[in-house]
């Protein structure tokens, strides 16, 4: 089943284009979350990065998936800065590797792309679940997807479970004290607020889900 479920370059390009659009739309929402427990720039930072991506996407889509994702990641790394730049930069740069220079991937390969990308985020940021970061959304999401694949769940449904899991993970950050990032200096005052990076991670996964065939 998974070998026949193909995600081609057009899919990835569409996901990225939609992502760029939704980042603009959600910019002030994300920035608002970051105002509460950070420095109020998460939405703007992503917007700066994805504007750069949008500017070049027409050009870059000529490349294979590995290079396309790498260029996207490099643009985020180069333009976003802060914590989100290196973290999301690594996510996208690394995601391309399992695509191995191809123009399309099957669902197994797609899973590997996500796995490698999310692990790169963990490696870079050294955060684990429960520290009130994007990892609280990404790690459970990846585990859920792995489980669903183990059970042989149909691709789009499997991804839906993944997304649900990401959202629960995002919401699980609300009662937490932060142990990583800017919010860690806040102590108890961070309690009661969603982590902005967990929220943006859900938005990213949602775009992958929405565009699945």
């Amino acid at each position, binding site marked *: 089943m998974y070998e026949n479920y193909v995600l081609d370059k057009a899919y990835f390009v569409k996901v990225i284009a939609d992502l760029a659009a939704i980042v603009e739309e959600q*910019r*002030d929402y994300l*920035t608002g979350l970051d*105002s*509460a*427990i*950070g*420095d*109020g*720039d998460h939405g*703007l*930072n992503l917007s*700066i990065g994805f*504007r750069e991506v949008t500017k070049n996407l027409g050009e870059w889509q000529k490349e294979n998936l590995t290079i396309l994702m790498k260029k996207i990641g490099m643009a985020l*790394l*180069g*333009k*976003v*800065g*802060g*914590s*989100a*730049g*290196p*973290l999301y930069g690594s996510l996208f740069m690394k995601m391309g590797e399992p695509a191995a220079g191809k123009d399309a991937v099957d669902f197994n390969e797609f899973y590997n792309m996500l796995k490698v990308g999310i692990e790169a985020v963990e490696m*870079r*940021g050294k955060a684990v679940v429960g520290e009130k970061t994007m990892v609280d959304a990404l790690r459970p999401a990846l585990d859920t997807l792995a489980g669903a694949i183990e059970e042989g769940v149909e691709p789009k449904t499997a991804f839906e479970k993944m997304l649900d899991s990401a959202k629960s993970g995002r919401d699980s950050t609300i009662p937490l004290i932060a142990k*990583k*990032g*800017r*919010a*860690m*200096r*806040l*102590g108890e*005052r961070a309690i009661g607020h969603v982590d902005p990076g967990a929220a943006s991670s859900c938005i990213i996964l949602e775009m992958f889900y929405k565009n699945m065939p």
Partner: protein
Amino acid sequence: MKRLINDPYDVVEEMLEGYVKAHEQYVKLLEHDGRVVVSKKAPVENKVGIIIGGGSGHEPLFLGYVGEGFADAAVIGNINTSPSPEPCYNAVKAVDAGKGCLYMYGNYAGDVLNFDMGAEMASMDGIRVETVLVTDDVVSSKEIKDRRGVAGDFYVFKIAAAKAALGADLDEVKAAAEKANANTRSMGVALSSATLPSTGKPIFEMGEEDMEIGMGIHGEPGVRRGKIEPADKVIDQIMEHILPDLPYESGDEVSVLVNSLGATPLLDLHICYRRVAQILKEKGIKVHKAFVGPFATSMDMAGMSVTLLKLDDELKELLDYPCDTPYFVQK
């Protein structure tokens, strides 16, 4: 409060364009990287390269301290946001004179991620880059290594830069920076939020009577919110936190920095300094030199911080060492 800007997405580039034009006798942008402000004298022969940096919106920090006898380059991020790895790396390439470089910046997760990647890239070119994180904000954590850097940046950068200017090697320069950081403590209060260029709105709202104690310079919330109080009371609280933390004790000699977060005028800062000086005198602590003004700001935020640097003969010599930059000149 209102800002005088054009497109919010262009603020950093336009500021930099204005900056290097206004101060062209001192600095330029790297030709191939518009986020690196370099001293016109760099690389300086036989000198360790001094590289500082971080988000924009704290001017004159960081770029204002690039010049002779101070930093060789500043790496510039977006508003309140660490620069990305490439300009960190490009700064090294531009200022290294064969003796290696020292990165210095405030201890923030984002900055560490990006500067570390820059250092990795430089090490692949065989250039040694060391890092000293500034951790002066006493209220940001119990653990010193988790504390963030605020106005104490100024002292740590100044001391290390003077050591480098005197011809020390990278290990010695790093040691001087670490010693300065170990002897520096700060604490601030905010009376209003900064206005984000992107939204034209304050990062957060504060009541007419509120004051945020221990606010950082990015608009991160402080340790607690309190009622606004007379200047002397505010300074008393700040000094009660700072003095025992190192501790600073009778017989010590210090330098004091009373820093404006942006909108708090020199008038108020000097009223605050008056109280700081009274307390230090009571405690038998001698002031070698005081600095009062906007040294590390958060755009148009109202508020101030007090920083103490405990001096010994070496630190005193390095602090007094002459320098000439657009925003700090010392004869």
